[in-house]
């Protein structure tokens, strides 16, 4: 191969894989979803959390990304995880991180911006399946979401169900309609953009998506987060007959130290 500075000798390296790569499965999640603990909290039973779930630097936000293109899914996932959507002060997170390291000896990568868990799926129907909604239903099978999703970000052009179709289904569901939805598209078509915004999309991003676009997502994620906290508090208060004054005090202290949504409750 000729380069401006002269030829470079290229030798193929045996054993190096170039053209075959392990494909992501249709569902690609990281880190573990904050699933069944939510229902356990509502039941008011005390639970012993696996150490990975109790870490304060554990994901505080969960975004569902929908895109049929594998390189694009990789990109959006990295963009989301790199970005900082935190609403709490850095000090409380720092304290939480120090505590978690003391108590559980877990290595922290030291980046408080890495608080976003991302689930990436390759189609609208898989997205609805993940959200617990199936084709002909308005509400999911169980009476609660298995996972708390703070934002759905979807590509517009996808085979089968477009991002617009997915948006409509989400907004038609009384259960899902409050989750903010962001649409991405590589085509800058004003009528398309307007249609999506009118249908209830919170934001429309032009592809290729870049780091600076992530700040546009922050207000939607934080708003969704506050609402989620509020709803959790309502449910916890309705179980308050199980809670003594002492654990109320402890709850207040916990709020200072562990901003994570999932906290063990003792009745």
């Amino acid at each position, binding site marked *: *191969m000729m*380069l*401006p*500075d*002269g030829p*470079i000798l*290229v*030798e193929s*390296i045996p054993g*190096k894989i*170039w*053209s*075959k*790569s392990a494909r992501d499965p249709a569902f690609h999640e990281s880190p573990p979803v904050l699933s069944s603990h939510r229902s356990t909290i509502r039941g008011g039973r005390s639970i012993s959390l696996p150490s990975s779930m109790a870490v304060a630097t554990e994901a505080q936000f969960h975004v569902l990304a929908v895109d*049929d*293109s*594998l*390189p*694009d899914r*990789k*990109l959006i996932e*990295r*963009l989301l995880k*790199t970005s900082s959507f935190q609403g709490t002060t850095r000090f409380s997170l720092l304290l939480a991180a120090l505590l978690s390291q003391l108590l559980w000896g877990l290595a922290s*990568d030291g*980046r408080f911006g*890495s608080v976003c868990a991302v689930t990436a799926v390759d189609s609208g129907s898989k997205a609805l399946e993940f959200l617990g909604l199936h084709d002909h239903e308005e509400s999911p099978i169980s009476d609660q979401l298995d996972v708390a999703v703070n934002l759905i970000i979807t590509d517009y*052009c996808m*085979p089968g169900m477009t991002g617009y179709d997915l948006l409509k289904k989400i907004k038609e569901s009384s259960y899902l309609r409050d989750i903010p939805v962001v649409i991405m598209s*590589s085509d800058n078509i004003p009528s398309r953009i307007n249609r999506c915004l009118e249908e209830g999309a919170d934001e429309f991003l032009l*592809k*290729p*998506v*870049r*780091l600076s676009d992530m700040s546009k997502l922050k207000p939607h994620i934080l708003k969704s987060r506050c609402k989620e906290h509020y709803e959790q508090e309502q449910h916890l208060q309705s179980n308050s007959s199980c809670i003594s004054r002492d654990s109320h005090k402890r709850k207040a202290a916990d709020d200072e130290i562990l901003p994570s949504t999932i906290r063990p409750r003792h009745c």
Partner: protein
Amino acid sequence: MAAALTNQLHALVNNMFATGLLDDQFQQLQMLQDSSAPDFVSEVVTLFCDDGERIIGELARQLDKPNVDFDRVDSFAHQLKGSSASVGAQQVKNTCIQFREFCQQRSRDGCLKTLDLVRTEFYDLRNKFQVMLQVLPNVLKIHLTLSIEFH
């Protein structure tokens, strides 16, 4: 020896930017690589190359049919345009835009000529990525660290 390789890598990457093979979206990828994701650029580029090869195969298959479904051809060209835009593969992206115009015009000749062009450009780009990522992966990481300071 290492210095000579570093210089050649710098020259390669700079050349790719200068000749319009890559645009600033590739720099976005570079910015997303760090100690928590040390192979990010290599992973995305690999996914793009696999995906691109698949799509080019589909385009050839579709255009080989006696009755070409131009909407289907267009949707494949759209896919390749999208993924090339996402990794900063500017030249391939622009050729895909041309491709889609021929699809709109229902021009089989135009599509076939553009397919040849996009295939050539894609494989040229892939070869250069291969040099960047396989022959010089450690040098690339140093280069990326340095280039962020200079951009």
